[in-house]
């Protein structure tokens, strides 16, 4: 399951300012509990989170779910952070409205939320509530543009994450694609992130 094709590229647009050494990285098509079958007429996965370490830019095996090794966990449209009911870390998150590049500093009065499953999550669940919108006509999911997930990692450092696409290969199927195609290609995250390793709230 977790043998994900994970690779990264350096962002060419990074400005050459002396104090900032952080660069943004892109993760492509990270599977997040992809569809394995049908239950009660609904496509389902195995129900396991796909864990990812922002600090090390790598996937973490699910046996380490109860550790501080991972920073975010992905399962379908649910994104968890390593704190609260989700993990033993000092994680947390909130959703910032604005562009990825604009977010240069996390403002001091920002409140990081933690997961309190199943009633609430740091990154709210549901269409048009957190990071995505689901079109009920085409049954396709799009990340809402201008939403940045501000993440506190398991070790209490900061990162910003922008989800770019939810489908395999980073391309959303056509509106008139078959249900089978829409189903088999979904739950693959393409996202970019910037991690600030020095513990400051600036990127």
């Amino acid at each position: 399951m977790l043998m994900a094709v994970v690779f990264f590229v350096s962002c060419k647009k990074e400005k050459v300012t002396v104090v900032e050494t952080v660069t943004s990285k892109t993760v492509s098509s990270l599977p997040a509990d992809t569809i394995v079958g049908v239950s009660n007429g609904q496509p389902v996965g195995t129900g396991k989170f796909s864990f990812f370490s922002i600090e090390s830019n790598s996937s973490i095996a699910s046996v380490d779910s109860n550790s501080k090794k991972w920073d975010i966990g992905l399962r379908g449209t649910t994104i968890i952070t390593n704190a609260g009911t989700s993990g033993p870390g000092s994680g947390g998150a909130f959703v910032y409205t604005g562009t990825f590049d604009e977010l240069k500093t996390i403002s001091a009065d920002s409140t990081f939320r933690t997961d309190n499953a199943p009633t609430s999550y740091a990154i709210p669940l549901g269409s048009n509530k957190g990071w995505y919108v689901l079109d009920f006509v085409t049954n396709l999911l799009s990340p809402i543009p201008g939403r940045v997930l501000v993440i506190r990692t398991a070790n209490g450092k900061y990162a910003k994450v922008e989800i770019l696409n939810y489908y395999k290969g980073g391309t959303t199927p056509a509106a008139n694609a078959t249900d089978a195609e829409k189903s088999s290609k979904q739950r693959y995250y393409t996202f970019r992130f910037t991690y600030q390793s020095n513990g400051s709230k600036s990127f």
Partner: protein
Amino acid sequence: MRYSLFIIFLLISTSLTAQVKADSSAFKQLDDVIVTATRSPRLLANVSIPASVISAKTIYQSGSLRLNDILSEQSGIVITDNFGKGIQLQGLSSDYTLILLNGEPLVGRTGGVFDLSRITIRGIKKIEIIKGPSSSLYGSEAMGGVINIITDQSGSRKTDFALRYGSFNTVDASIDIARKIKKTEVQFFSNYNRSQGYSLKPNALQKTVEPFWRSTQQITVSQPLGSKWKFSLLARHNNTFINNTIAVQNGGNTIVSKGFEKSNEYNLNPSLQFKINQKISSSLRGYLTGFKAIQELKIKDAFGSYDDQFSQIYKRIENQTDWQIRDKSSLIIGAGYVSESVESNRYDELSTKRKNAIAYSFFQHEEQLSKNLTFIGGMRYDANKIYASVASPKAAFQYKISDKISFNLSYGKGFKAPDFRQLFLNFTNLAAGSYSVFGTDVARDEIKKMSDANLIDQTTAAFNNVSVLKPEISGGLNAGMKIKTLNGIDVNINFFRNDISNMIVTDVVAYKKSGGQIFSYFNLKNARTQGIEIEAGKRVLNVISLKAGFQYLNTADKEVLKSIKAGTVFERSLETGLASRLKTSEYGGLPNRSKFSANAKATYDNNKGLFTTVRIFYRGRWGTNDLDGNGLINRSDEYAKGNIQVNASLGYKLGERWDVMAGVDNIFNYKDIQNLPGNPGRVGYATLQIHL
């Protein structure tokens, strides 16, 4: 202004007819008489609001069968394809256009859309089109405009048969018989229309358009009672039947259901006209119409069956009195009472009747203020039983600089009453995430019931705002000019702007424990449509008529515009996949609206029975659905492609009794399976008419 004798609106006096013929305008339309604009017959050239008339001859020469066919060929009108063929006028959707038959409203809408293909336009006299709000005369729905179908009541003796055969085994047959027996005029009309439908996708389980048939029977009677009274009656019955085969994918399985959809509609319209003296006349009109639609689907191998029933009855009584106060001053006053009811299993048990009643009155004063300037002012008040009452004023000016140039300016209020669906709908979709939609009148009770049964997770802030819906309101400004150029070209230019407030949209009021959302209706949205429409026409050698039309349309959701200006709306680039702030110039406005549309028509008619037409239609790209997650039309891939379609026809009169004609619509076979399922591609047909 020389409006001719003030007359009862269905009796067009010979003096008016004579006057019409004397004026030899290049724009044939301008000679026509229009009733709908002022509720009294007027020369089209003297009407101060945007209006047009489509004659029976134009309809015949265009080979049009149904109301949507001919309306789709008019400037500034787009036919949409959702819940049937709907009209879009000045950028307002089908919900906001009133469809009249001889001045009486036709009912029976699905999802707010009046399906124009229900209406045959054989056996009618003309179609009148008013653009911009006319609620001051017609009340609810007359917001974007009014379409009035005038059936033939000329009383001339005729026995006509028409038969047409075309692609997809489409058959259209009509009988039209008119007799004058002493002073009684009787007309009988019958139409039958059928088609085997078509498939745009080969080998699909389900046809794009399933086989259907439709039929219409109509009788009109007109009987003078002495010299001052006249009785007339229209009775009409309309049937439609559509086969249904629906294939749905569910978890990898294809579920095929078979069944039908049918509708049954009747109209009964007796009226009594009384000419008190040369100056005052009055009419009393009764109207009863019913529309019943049934859809039944039997689902193969499980889940039982689907049964949808909707039945609406509309009754109205109305008096209108016309008073020619002086030569240049006239007054119309009227009042009426409407009682309507709906029974539907979309709302309730079928036995529960949902009712509304409206009492209304209106007046309109027309005054020629000077030799060049005419003013019309009017107002209507609708007192409603189940939603807020509305006052709809309107004022219009016409200023004639000369015979060649005139200016028109009008401003009016329009409204659309909340419909039964928005008040009483009680719908739960079990298939798609188990969401529910409740009308505002039932939402609280239904959610309370579910809450008592421990099915509700939480209610939202919007839940507290569920209240009596207000009518949707518009203010419409139209400013235009009519010019006859020296070289014989008639040009009409009209600028329009409609500001719509209190638009009714759905919002989430609660979440179910199962995760499903519950929606209800709110007066939330404000939108605007604005643009310019230009039409030009010229006649050459009295045998060729050339016409061209163009519309520029700009629409917007005002709240969205505010958010864009506030910088809180973003888009995702198609090329880079990255998000950026949306600019106002990138916002594509309301979906399904084309910024540009245009048409050009050429007709040759030797006035001895030979004619040919070529008509070209352009519709610019229009927004379809959001793909980048901001809920708006902004990116190039969120539009359907603009397209050009060409229609042509050729006809010949074989002696006194026979007419033959043939035509091809969509000659270059333009198709767009995804966005234009109602367009079958190229279609050919041939028609034979016999006059006995």
